[in-house]
């Protein structure tokens, strides 16, 4: 029997609980904000529940592991952030042809406003592209409920089902009613069936037809779900999806306005439900995060069912096309639609706010990336080109050693292209250990194979730091905490064809600089592994280094240490000072020309 409990849960944890309640046997993923906490919550429970939970090396790998598991009949889930779905797009696009075995849920978390991302990409477009159902939760309760339903939907139609939370759903906390975990669903094992599992052209053509034939049934089934509902209160209305629908619902309640509401939570969008609503209104506002997916659909249906209806939304300029929605923006859009005055927030004037110093995210005090960048710049000079990648180290953008950032693994490949494009200056591509293992390997292999003259710096802190310290094949442990072989980055790089491979410790600045110089002078492809554990990992492991202090007699006030940019170093107008944030890395002592920094006693 399932017992329902009420708990205060993070949206991503509510999703994880839904996965457990569904009796899933395999959960894979690659960390990425705002999706990471799903696997993080499940990994420590793997043993207890007899399930396999893994951090895969990238999203394509994660997706394929989940597919294989599903083909044994087990229920499987795979998690990633929206841009991770680009990496996994290859299996994702053909899987719907072949279909699933056990229910399979693809969780792709979108990040409107790019809180921690490089673009604002709408995963609902991908679901439509692949012709699979997609559920768009508005809050943690819906996230849990939809996850559970996604597994059975997947089995009903033999297709993967996408769950698409957005940042404010994944990172919301709420009182959520959850059931007890279900025992792992038994899987009969892999059943040989080449016409179903081998995507040869002869098999793919009929499977494509089959996929298209499923669509009407999916739409009809989804139309019955409780997440699509309406409330009629007059001829003016709102159609809202996901959290946008919830903002609209609250705005209508606050204003006590006679505004009808249609909430949509499933894709493909139920055409009849939308058409029936449109027939009863003459003016509507469409509210949704990111792309106007629902809005375009409403426009299409309106042509058949009510061509005279006025449709407001992103395409009409009533709601912003970029960034994320918020309750006030939605409330004001509803106000404008019904001719009520807008509510203005008590804005602080720009003049008042101008006294505030900016507080951008920064590399931690004692972060070895800062030292590696310093050494890199010394060796290569400021005119060299520094193609960069996705990770904590992108925050070094102010140090002059971050020239490009495109997507995971693109530092090496873009760097090679810059060389082949005719750039003669030095090139030093930079990426982290997790990113290198995610998608830098193929780029390095390609650079070696095609003869790119450049240096690749792998900033190796032995962890996926940016997303919250998830382990990877270079860490020595798995997600579930099992020991695993620690991969050697230098050996991989040599095997892939790099001519010169050296490792140095960024905390030993002189040796780091010399290493970069040798790499720069190498006539072919060189790799420098800047190896030093993440300063946060050290703190968590109880490693304490004595802080440094400035000998004020010796300090000449040259500010070299200050320009290094460590948050632990301040300048009081005359001399440098080291504050309580100091982690004792000692790099500033190596930079100081007066030897004014010393270890505190």
């Amino acid at each position, binding site marked *: 029997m399932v017992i329902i409990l009420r708990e205060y849960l993070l949206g991503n944890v509510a999703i994880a609980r839904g996965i457990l309640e569904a009796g899933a046997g395999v959960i894979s993923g690659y960390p990425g904000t705002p999706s990471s906490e799903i696997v993080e919550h499940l990994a420590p429970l793997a043993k207890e529940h007899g399930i396999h939970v893994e951090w895969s090396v990238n999203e394509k790998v994660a997706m394929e592991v989940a597919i294989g598991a599903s083909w044994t009949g087990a229920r499987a889930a795979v998690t990633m952030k929206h841009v991770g779905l680009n990496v996994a797009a290859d299996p994702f696009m053909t899987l719907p042809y072949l279909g699933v075995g056990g229910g399979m849920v693809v969780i792709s978390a979108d990040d409107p406003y790019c*809180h921690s991302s490089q673009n604002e990409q709408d995963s609902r477009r991908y679901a439509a592209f692949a012709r699979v159902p997609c559920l768009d939760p508005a809050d943690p309760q819906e996230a849990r409920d939809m996850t559970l339903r996604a597994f059975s939907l997947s089995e009903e139609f033999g297709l993967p089902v996408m769950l698409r939370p957005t940042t404010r759903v994944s990172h919301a906390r*709420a009182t959520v009613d959850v059931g007890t975990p279900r025992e792992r669903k038994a899987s009969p094992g892999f059943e040989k069936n080449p016409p179903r599992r081998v995507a040869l052209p002869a098999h793919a053509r009929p499977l494509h037809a089959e996929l298209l034939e499923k669509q009407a049934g999916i739409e009809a089934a989804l139309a019955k779900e409780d997440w699509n509902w309406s409330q009629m209160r007059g001829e003016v209305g709102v159609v809202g999806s996901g959290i946008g629908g919830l*903002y609209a619902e609250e705005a209508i309640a606050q204003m006590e306005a006679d505004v009808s509401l249609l909430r949509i939570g499933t894709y493909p969008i139920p055409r009849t439900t939308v058409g029936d609503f449109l027939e009863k209104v003459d003016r509507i506002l469409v509210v949704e995060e990111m792309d106007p997916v629902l809005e375009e659909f409403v426009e299409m249906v309106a042509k058949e069912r009510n061509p005279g209806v006025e449709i407001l939304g992103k395409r009409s300029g009533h709601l912003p096309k970029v960034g994320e929605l918020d309750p*006030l923006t939605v409330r004001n859009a509803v106000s404008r639609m019904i001719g009520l005055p807008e509510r203005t*927030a008590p804005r602080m004037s720009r003049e008042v706010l101008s006294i505030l*110093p900016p*507080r951008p995210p920064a590399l931690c005090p004692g972060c070895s990336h800062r030292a590696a960048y310093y050494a890199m710049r010394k060796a290569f000079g400021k005119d060299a080109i520094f193609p960069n990648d996705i990770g904590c180290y992108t925050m070094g953008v102010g140090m002059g050693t971050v020239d490009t950032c495109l997507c995971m693994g693109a530092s090496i490949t873009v760097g090679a292209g810059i060389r082949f494009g005719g750039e003669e200056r030095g090139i030093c591509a930079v990426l982290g250990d997790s990113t290198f293992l995610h998608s830098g390997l193929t780029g390095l292999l390609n650079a070696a194979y095609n003869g790119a003259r450049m240096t690749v710096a792998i900033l190796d802190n032995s962890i996926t730091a940016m997303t919250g310290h998830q382990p990877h094949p270079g860490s020595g442990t798995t997600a579930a905490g099992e020991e695993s072989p620690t991969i050697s980055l230098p050996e991989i790089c040599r095997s892939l064809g790099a001519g010169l491979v050296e490792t140095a410790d960024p905390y030993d600045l002189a040796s780091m600089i010399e290493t970069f110089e040798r790499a720069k002078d190498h006539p072919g492809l060189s790799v420098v592994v800047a190896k030093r554990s993440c300063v946060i990992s050290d703190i968590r492991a109880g490693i304490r280094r004595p802080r440094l202090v400035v000998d004020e007699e010796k300090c000449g006030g040259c500010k070299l240490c200050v320009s290094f940019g460590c948050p632990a170093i301040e300048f009081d107008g005359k001399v440098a000072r080291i504050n309580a944030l100091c982690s004792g890395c000692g790099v500033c002592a190596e930079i100081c020309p007066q030897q004014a920094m010393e270890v505190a006693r």
Partner: protein
Amino acid sequence: MRTSDCDVVVVGVGGQGVILISEIIGRAAMLSGLSVRGVETHGMAQRGGSVINHIRVGCRYSAMISPGGADVLVAMEPAEALRYASYLAPEGVALVNTRPLLPVTVTTGQATYPSIEEILAPLREASSRVYPMDATGLAAEAGSPQAANVVMLGALARHLPIGEEPLQEALSKIVPAKFLEVNRKAFELGKIEVE
């Protein structure tokens, strides 16, 4: 119509324990049988950047609070109080830790940090209920400056539609046992500070 009993915005700097405040309030609200919503800053901004959490007690809608809608603004850091002051409702209460945490832009000399008075003056124009306090100092008095977040929670308690008992119970469930005594003291000092 009001759609939430109490809307609280908690701001500060990544690493100051802003999330702990929401966790405790959330648990305590649940213990009191109230529906609660919250939203947190995770990811990139946590690395020493400015962070904002929303908590809505007695609310069944989204976790997001509108600018101009917060009944209470809890600021773990003075500059952050002003940065997010637009969230404060006209009758709202601002609880402000007066201990500055200098951002890198200041330590590297690219920007300057204003005086506490320069920060509090516009805040006081926005609200007549601004309560500055040295939460970090009070936390040190309790036994650890890290407990400044719980000092702020103690100061916030009287403004929440939650009794002290569930707050204390949630605190004891969330804080590790060996730090509980310090945190209990921190809560008490925060509470007394605004009495």
